[in-house]
């Protein structure tokens, strides 16, 4: 009898202990799940918070200047007149020139890495190009200011000015004394910085081309150029555009490198050799020295414009890359 109750109570105790452990596991399970869930939502909240905080910070500038903020060139801290046109113009022009330079080179490197490069060199060269993306932007800045800009000023810009002088239209574009720093220099530095990003995307999408397609084309007697131009690039067009947009997003928002070499002049010049400014360079240069609410607010409003532009560009880029991923998966 005692033996029975003993075993019974032992079993009951075991069951209770078991239940306790299971309940503990259930609690930690739920807790962990909740933790991951809320962290994931934090990413969404972060984006919302950035938008809202910039909107609130820039509200004063938008209230004071209205839509004129976007269309005025004046930037005068003394009279407290601020307009975003010159920085917006500088941002778009430097990025556009950067893309003109970087896109063909990036596609060239990507073709080289996927089609032409001898196998044992593929990885080292690929890594070297990727390291270019790892170099901090301030390094591009200091290098641009002390090495690249003087070099351009001495050897390249005088030639450009002399060469384009007799040509109508274009002589305005390449006019003026060779400052070294300016729109063109910034654009070229930007091109070097976005090059590895575009190359990486192009290389990845080129590798999604089914080998059968290329082999068939080579089998028909096509040359490398014809295979790349008629098979590889058309097949991956959406992905390439996505990569280019991704690079554009980077170029638009790049700050430190541009701040060093743009010259920080709040005006719109016809010549691309002249100094100018971009949104990010203006903020980096002036934010800590800005006195008065309206000055600070105008700079934050600039930040909001920049964030909005890059958001749209990057969203389009991701959308296109998602399309090609689906194609590769199917």
């Amino acid at each position, binding site marked *: 009898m005692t033996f029975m109750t003993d075993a019974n109570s032992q079993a009951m105790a075991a069951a209770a202990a078991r239940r306790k452990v299971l309940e503990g596991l259930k609690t930690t399970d739920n807790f962990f799940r909740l933790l991951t869930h809320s962290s994931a939502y934090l990413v969404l909240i972060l984006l919302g918070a950035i938008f809202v*905080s910039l909107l609130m910070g820039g509200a004063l500038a938008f209230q004071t200047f209205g839509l004129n903020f976007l269309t005025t060139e004046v930037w005068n801290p003394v009279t407290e007149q601020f307009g975003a046109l010159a920085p917006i113009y500088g941002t778009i022009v430097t990025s556009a020139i950067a893309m003109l330079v970087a896109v063909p080179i990036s596609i060239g490197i990507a*073709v080289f890495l996927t089609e032409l490069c001898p196998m044992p060199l593929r990885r080292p060269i690929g890594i070297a190009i990727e390291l*270019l993306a790892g170099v901090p932007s*301030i390094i591009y800045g200091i*290098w641009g200011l*002390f090495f690249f800009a003087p070099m351009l000023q001495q050897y390249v810009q005088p030639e450009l000015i002399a060469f384009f002088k007799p040509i109508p239209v274009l002589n305005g574009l390449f006019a003026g004394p060779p400052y070294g720093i300016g729109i063109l220099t910034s654009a070229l530095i930007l091109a070097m910085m976005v090059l590895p990003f575009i190359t990486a995307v192009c290389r990845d999408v080129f590798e999604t081309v089914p080998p059968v397609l290329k082999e068939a084309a080579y089998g028909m007697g096509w040359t490398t150029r014809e295979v790349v131009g008629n098979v590889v690039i058309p097949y991956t067009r959406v992905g390439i555009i996505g990569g280019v947009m991704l690079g554009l997003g980077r170029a638009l928002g790049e*700050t430190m490198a541009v701040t060093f070499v743009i010259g920080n002049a709040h005006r719109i010049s016809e010549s691309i050799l002249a100094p100018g400014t971009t949104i990010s360079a203006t903020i980096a240069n002036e934010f800590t020295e800005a006195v008065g609410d309206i000055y600070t607010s105008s700079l934050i409003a600039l930040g909001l414009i920049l964030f909005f532009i890059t958001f749209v560009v990057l969203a389009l880029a991701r959308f296109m890359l998602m399309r090609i991923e689906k194609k590769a998966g199917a």
Partner: protein
Amino acid sequence: MALDLAKYRRRRLRSTITVSLCWAASGLGLTILAVILATLVFKGFAGLNLKVFTEMTPPPGSDGGLLNAIAGSLLMTFFGVLIGTPIGILAGTYLAEYGRYSKVSSVIRFINDILLSAPSIVTGLFVYEVLVRPMGHFSAIAGAAALAVLVIPTVVRTTENMLVLVPNQLREASSALGLPQSLVIRKIAYKAARAGMITGVLLAIARVSGETAPLLFTALNNQFWSTDVNAPMASLPVVIFQYALSPYEDWQRLAWTGALLITAAVLSLSIAARYLGTSRTPK
């Protein structure tokens, strides 16, 4: 027949031109990297001595080093990564484990990818608005927070990518043994994806330790030794920025030395990360 041959030659020629242009493009890319590194070594090595690591940033015209800037960079990067990494790993875990196929996850993934390449100066403005302005002063905390905002998207991306690669059989086997899902994730999936996740964290460290823009108006700068996280703090990139643009030659020399140090650190980190990532990534 002769006509065809001419056409064939033209096609060959055009192809050769394109191929050579591709070779030239790659040569150009490698040259840029080589020239940048050579300039850094050439200009930075001259100023590299023990004082750089033992003395504070000097006023113009006198001797000094970069000790407070190096310490500040290490401290803020450490705290930035300390705050950002757990959030990033947990969010990445949600995307890969709990909500892999849900609608919300694809939205989060999309937004995360945008944050990944959003301009870092905007992060600085954001932290200025939510931390510096309410606190009333610049501080190392704000700097670390700005860096954490940059760490999160990087870690989310790599964590998710690595967890997705873990074979489902591992999860099923451990679930069949009665392991609750949180333990399956923490004891099995994390272990299998560990190398890749560490790579992600290393890459995030490499990325933020070179960042200047988000620190400019959060941590600001500090001429002196300071470990007060509630006060402005020097960092290597911001000191480089200030010294390089100054008219003083000794400051510019220090800026180059700092640039060499930071590039060496960042590049060796990313090479280490790559090595780790390729040698033991789950297949």
